[in-house]
């Protein structure tokens, strides 16, 4: 009785196959695609008592971009191609020469930079579309506008800190964002329209 009996080992050679099957099952049923896109924040819905109080913005502070149902793009009063939008938007946001038809410059103290800068704080870029406009064109315009902002931010970041915007610390990025706040109107276009 003192003999030790050796327990026969469980045959585990198929465990690898089983786990391979599980692995393949998960590979098939899941998706790894990371969703990318342009993030936007919609304005809050209008309260009832505010309905008639249209927000008034000075005309020089609005850049109206209109796209009609045939996908023609207009900036202000003239037709433009998609390629023009970026340059026009940059000119508008920056207003380097303080022209009277571009948004007003206001001095703003930027803590992160330790100085006061002239900022077109109240500018708004509004994109109006027809119900028949292609989403693709609308998206291309939005993308061009974001490109304009990003290039301006990169320029400033390089001038101030010597690096591109994306390599800055959070505080530095915040300071840059204060100079060039992204203001693309997502509201119902009529509310901001130039028809006042």
């Amino acid at each position, binding site marked *: 009785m003192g003999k030790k009996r050796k327990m026969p080992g469980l045959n*585990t*050679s198929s*465990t*690898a196959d*089983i*786990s*391979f099957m*599980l*692995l393949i099952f*998960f*590979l098939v*049923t*899941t*998706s*790894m695609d*990371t*969703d*990318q*896109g*342009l*993030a*936007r*924040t*919609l*304005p*809050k*819905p209008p309260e009832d008592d505010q309905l008639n109080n249209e927000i008034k913005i000075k005309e020089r502070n609005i850049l109206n971009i209109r*796209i009609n149902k045939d996908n023609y793009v207009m900036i202000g009063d003239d037709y433009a191609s998609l390629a023009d939008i970026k340059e026009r938007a940059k000119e508008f946001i920056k207003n380097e020469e303080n022209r009277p038809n571009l948004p007003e410059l206001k001095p703003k103290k930027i803590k992160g930079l330790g100085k006061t800068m002239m900022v077109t704080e109240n500018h708004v870029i509004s994109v109006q*579309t*027809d*119900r*028949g*406009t*292609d*989403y*693709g064109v*609308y*998206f*291309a315009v*939005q*993308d061009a506008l*974001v*490109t304009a902002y*990003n290039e301006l931010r990169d320029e400033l970041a390089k001038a101030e800190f010597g690096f591109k915007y994306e390599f800055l610390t959070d505080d530095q990025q915040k300071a840059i964002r204060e100079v060039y706040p992204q203001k693309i109107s*997502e509201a*119902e276009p009529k509310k901001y329209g130039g028809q006042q």
Partner: protein
Amino acid sequence: MPEMNTSSLPDLIFTILFFFMMVTTMREVTLKVKFEKPIGTQLEKLARKSCTSFIYIGQPTDALRGQFGSAHRIQLNDKYAEAPEIYDYVMEDRSELAESDKPFYTVSLKVDHHTPMGIITDVKQVLRKAYALKIVYSANKKQD
């Protein structure tokens, strides 16, 4: 020739399995609309997938074309929907989130680039009403 010891093979495979389970998400819906996302250059990655609802807009897939025609449709979960139904969809999805995640709730719009803007304007108005104010226009990165 001595046999190779394969006893650690299952462990190895299990590790890979767990890795994939963690980095991937289940494909939740079967797409009933065809969409080709617009192409952009300035895209950001979606921060938290668990706090995101998806709205698909596009033409019905080829198999469903005969039944539903070729007008652009909105898809929520597994079925076609009209714009006002998004309100309930968003409310339900958001109520399932933990309280701390609610501020990060985002709606991702996966829209075909030929969709007329009218539909998207309607969708955005409903989202505003539902206070789902963070949206992402889903797109593909431009390949150089």
